[in-house]
């Protein structure tokens, strides 16, 4: 049972290492899905928002962690 618990913990940790990064990424994908599917924006605009949004989320997550560590 201990091994199963550790396997599940590892699986969850793979995708939820940083909760804010996970939530922001899911939110971004939902926004792009709405833009492309509901508001019918051009696929390139949707794609551009997806790419730039991911890069922004990445930089924000790394900067936030660096600030947190430097405060300690």
């Amino acid at each position: 049972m201990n091994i199963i618990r550790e396997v599940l913990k590892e699986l969850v940790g793979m995708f939820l290492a940083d909760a804010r990064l996970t939530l922001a990424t899911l939110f971004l994908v939902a926004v792009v899905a709405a833009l492309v599917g509901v508001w019918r924006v051009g696929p390139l605009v949707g794609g551009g928002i997806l790419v730039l949004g991911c890069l922004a989320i990445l930089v924000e997550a790394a900067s936030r962690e660096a600030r947190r560590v430097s405060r300690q």
Partner: protein
Amino acid sequence: MDPIAWSVAAPAVGSAFLASLVEAVEAFTIVLAVATLRGWRPAACGAAGALGVLGVLIAGLGPLLDRVPLHPLQLAIGVLLLLLGMGWLRKAILRAAGVIPLHDEAAIFASETGQLADSTRHQPTSLDWIAGLTAFKAVLLEGLEVVFIVIAVGAGRGLLWPAGVGALAACLAILAIGVAVRKPLAKVPENTLKFGIGVMLSAFGVFWTGEGLGINWPGQDFALGAFAVLFLSVGIAAASMLRRPAAEAIQ
């Protein structure tokens, strides 16, 4: 294979190979600690058992995913790849910037050896069992990410076997080097590899999430390369941007 197919196959096989290389180094450190304390038999049995479980997972889940409609599959796997890849890249940026320490295989080896010696002192009747289980757990846990990556980059494009072979080749390479050297593989540039894997997984994640949402990327499969260059450039820039404040904080 035509050039377009290679443009997806090469990153897929490369990602599986590199991810497997990194995880195999980490698993090998613990298997080596087991072998040093209790001999190679329990270490090899535990590792082989875990590799068997991982193989069954790939063989079982891979064909199942082929039955899922392409767009929902690409979207689900793309989002999971984005979360995994950006998580790896974030950590690699922080390590490259010196914000968090690099992975130290020698220290992990010493700690694992100590812990295993402690548990075998408390339960001396089942030494080989504990040792084998430790090796099994290490290989299974480290291998889970590789299994996901192999399935994620391979499923839906018929690349499951090439990606699996890439992962297996990396495991065998680390095993061969590790058995020859018989020391933790501390000189492997783990963070550089993790940086590269994070970049590739994030690029795959954006590409497949977009395709799953119905976005036709310009240049089709070649867009993957452009995304990889973007993530790499931004990752390197972020690491150098964060380096100075972190160094100042330490001072």
